[in-house]
């Protein structure tokens, strides 16, 4: 192969078997898609053979490719085995496509690098003053925040003054005298609610009920009255024992 001989017999200059194959394919000086695969296989095998004749160390992957190409060549030349998939033609086509794709990317890379590049061929402004963003803080506080803060400070620093508020309660003493007095008039079982005073606010009425209940327990303990209830939480009845 005269063409192959013009390529330097130096495996170092190739980036692997595919690169070498592409280099050999280019010597056919035709569209990559129209190259003769059989011719390319022969070129490759000759190249590897001559490299070995020169006693050059040939890397394993080049030999693997050589073996695969030798297989491809024989498959292309020998009678078809219809069971064989992929077919040798398909394998050959795929190899052509791979070479075309590598070639295309190599070409694209070269075209990319040849473009007018920023900072090498084209330039942005040499001394831009730049755009500034001045940040300012707007402090936020409402009048309520202000007086509430003063209230907080004052509450913290002023002498603490305790004022006990008058609470609406009926004391146990009052309840005892009320219930004792009312029992004197009652003859039969009477519900405890009947001993409640009329009117008054709700809190005071609840206090009166609680105190009257305690008063009833106290009077029962003294043996002055009897208590009766059908079930837990059922109405509570009182009756004088006198």
């Amino acid at each position: 192969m005269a063409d192959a001989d013009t390529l330097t017999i130096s495996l170092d200059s190739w980036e692997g078997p595919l690169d070498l194959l592409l280099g050999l394919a280019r010597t056919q000086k035709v569209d990559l898609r129209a190259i003769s695969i059989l011719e390319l296989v022969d070129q490759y095998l000759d190249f590897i053979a001559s490299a070995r004749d020169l006693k050059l160390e040939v890397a394993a992957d080049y030999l693997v490719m050589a073996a695969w190409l030798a297989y491809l060549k024989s498959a292309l030349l020998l009678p078809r085995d219809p069971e064989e998939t992929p077919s040798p033609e398909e394998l050959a086509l795929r190899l052509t496509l791979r070479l075309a794709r590598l070639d295309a990317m190599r070409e694209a890379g070269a075209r990319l690098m040849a473009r007018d590049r920023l900072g090498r061929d084209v330039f942005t402004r040499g001394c831009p003053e730049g755009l500034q963003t001045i940040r300012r803080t707007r402090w936020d506080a409402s009048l309520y925040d202000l007086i509430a803060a003063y209230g907080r400070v004052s509450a913290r620093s002023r002498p603490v003054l305790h004022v006990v508020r008058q609470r609406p309660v009926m004391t146990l003493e009052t309840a005892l005298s009320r219930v004792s007095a009312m029992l004197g008039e009652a003859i039969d079982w009477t519900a405890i609610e009947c001993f409640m005073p009329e009117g008054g606010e709700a809190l005071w009425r609840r206090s009166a009920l609680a105190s009257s209940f305690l008063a009833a327990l106290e009077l029962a303990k003294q043996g002055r009255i009897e208590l009766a209830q059908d079930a837990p939480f059922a109405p509570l009845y009182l009756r004088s024992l006198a």
Partner: protein
Amino acid sequence: MTPPDERTRAIEAILFAATGPLAVAEIATHLGEREGIAEALERLRTDYAGRGLNLVQRGEHWHFETAGDLAHLLRRDREDSRKLSRAGIETLAIIAYHEPVTRAEIEAIRGVQVAKGTIDVLMEAGWIRPAGRREVPGRPLTYATTPVFLDHFGLASRRDLPGIDELRAAGLLDPVDLALEQVSVEKDGEDD
């Protein structure tokens, strides 16, 4: 915009890419010739008159710069709203109620030290100002509020601030949670 001649275009690009104003001799070095530079600069000056950037001459040097009337666009002001810290608002409240007041007095009322940054923030906000020195040993600086303060808080004068009794009536001296009173009648009456 009529496309300029080649020499003018070249000078335009050289001036734009330069890292500083250029003298005619420096332009000539880049251009590789001395001819016609003055005319080209004149043409560029006219071309850019009234645009967003202008060609200007400073002494012997030429450069492009942003049109002076557009300088405000190059600085963008951004306002960030921030809530005043608890220390900040308490210090401000004490100054408002007690002015003029020294830092030591503020600390005595707050019961905690006042960081320098707190006073700075209130000054920066324009709400307080130094209000002379107290004629006591050490002559400490006093602080008072400003008209900006009244403005911000919608007050006609400092007298509009609620007094202690009003604060108490408004429950602001009494941090007891009213909801608690409903639940536990026993706690009732523990007023402070």
